[in-house]
């Protein structure tokens, strides 16, 4: 089941926009790559991105390729429609990424809501939304 988009309502897709310091994240996603911001100096991951490392106050930041792997930290299942583009029921998952301290809000590309569990291993898969955007969704990790 997972999330099915009702493409009739594609015009209502919320196109991501970015602050100047977030552009690296969203530009990579457009290219079907998942990257996270990291401080070059103290190696702290910063997500959602920031203009400066909050920890060591360095401006020397980099974009690091993600392993794309994570574990389900929490989730919800929409059972009543709030947005016509998103057919219910569908899951929104909060994924603890392998990169320390990074969590992503996303959707499931495969599987059923009742199969989700805390700590479930998942991996990223890019889902084309419209001509411009693909989004990082997740599926159960392949063994």
């Amino acid at each position, binding site marked *: 089941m997972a*999330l099915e988009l009702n493409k009739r309502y594609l015009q209502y*897709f*919320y*196109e*991501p*926009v*970015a*602050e100047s310091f*977030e552009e690296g994240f*969203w530009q990579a996603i457009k290219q079907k790559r998942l990257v996270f911001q990291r401080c070059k100096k103290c190696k702290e991951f910063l*997500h*959602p991105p920031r203009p400066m490392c909050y920890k060591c106050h360095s401006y020397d930041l980099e974009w690091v390729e993600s392993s794309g792997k994570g574990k389900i*930290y*929490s*989730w*919800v*299942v*929409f*059972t*009543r429609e*709030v*947005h016509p*583009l*998103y057919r219910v029921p*569908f899951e*929104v998952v*909060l994924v603890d990424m392998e990169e320390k*301290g*990074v*969590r*992503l*809000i*996303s*959707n499931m590309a495969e599987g059923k*809501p009742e199969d989700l569990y*805390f700590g479930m291993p998942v991996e990223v898969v890019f889902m084309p*939304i419209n001509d411009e*955007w693909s*989004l990082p969704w997740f599926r159960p990790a392949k063994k």
Partner: protein
Amino acid sequence: MTIKNKACIVGIGSTEFSRVSGRSEIHMAVDASMAACHDAGINPEEIDGAVKFGTAGQNCTEFTTETDVARCLGIRNLRYFVEAPWGGGACCATVLHAALAVANGMANYVLCFRSLKPASGTVRYGRPTRVPIDAHWSYTMPFGFASPTSWVAMITRRWMHDTGATNDQLGWVAIVCRENAARNPRAIFYGRPMTMEDYYKSQMMCDPFRINDTCLENDGSVALIVTTPERAKHLKQKPAYIVGAAEATAWDSYCMTSYYRDYIGIQEMEETGKELWKQTGLSPKNMDVVQFYDAFTSLVPMQMEALGFVKVGEGGPFCEGGDRIRPTGELPINTAGGMLSEAYIHGMNLITEGVRQIRGTAITQIKNVEHVLVTGGLGVPTSALILGQGR
């Protein structure tokens, strides 16, 4: 130095709470403000300060300005005005700012107000209409993660997992609030109590939340008048003294989706509580009745834990069966029905009920009330307030 007993709430007013108010936000704000002035026994022209709700991120959550109200009430000029931000997190902060102003002579009478028209207006809460396209929501909205119910459902599922809290326990919060509302003619759910069967039969909105886990969506306005104890002596009502008031952000607060810190809880309320207990020297055991911000059922036991009423893991069991949170219990909550069952005015109707408990005029009046705790919205930076008898 603290603000203890240097200011008090001397007037409360509200409109009716309805699904269709038939008038604009400004109109309702004026009605509630006039009612608060009449309640206090002041002429609206005496108001010289105002605190309105401000913004939450880039979401405009209050469309009625202090000048809208001032020109309708015939207030010649305001010499103090400020916004308390973060939606429902602002409710007790409005009183905090008003108290600071009157205690320091910046204003004599401060009007705090909130007017909402989500039931029949153009902006419905819980619907992704007029959501600003901005960087913050880009991590949320493109995934269809588009309602306050879902944002709080996410932290609730994790909290239930970590503490072992159950759906039954959430159901009891909803049932007790509904019982309180059933006695309250102002409440949307006046005369309509609910059983556990009703709770489970209600539509699943966003698992784990059913519709009966979520607050009402209604039109209405609430206004408060804050002044000094000296001025209060000459007014109509017994003053509700502001014993303490606090507001707080927490580590990595992120509007409604503070999901990027170790634990996705309500740390903003933990911080607010620490500040409030430190400021007043009081503790949870001194609170005779609490008006918990109850936009969603789970937030009641979560706040009990965050504020230290119980240990982590005990909030859910505390609500089980409802007896301990009923008016006859050890910790009566939301005696007018709360936002689950009286009305959703972003927490301002919790403050008016707190004032009535201090005055001794509540419909579900708790005996010998010395202190009332009122709390603000969760998922955002928030605030809390202790009202007292001035002793």
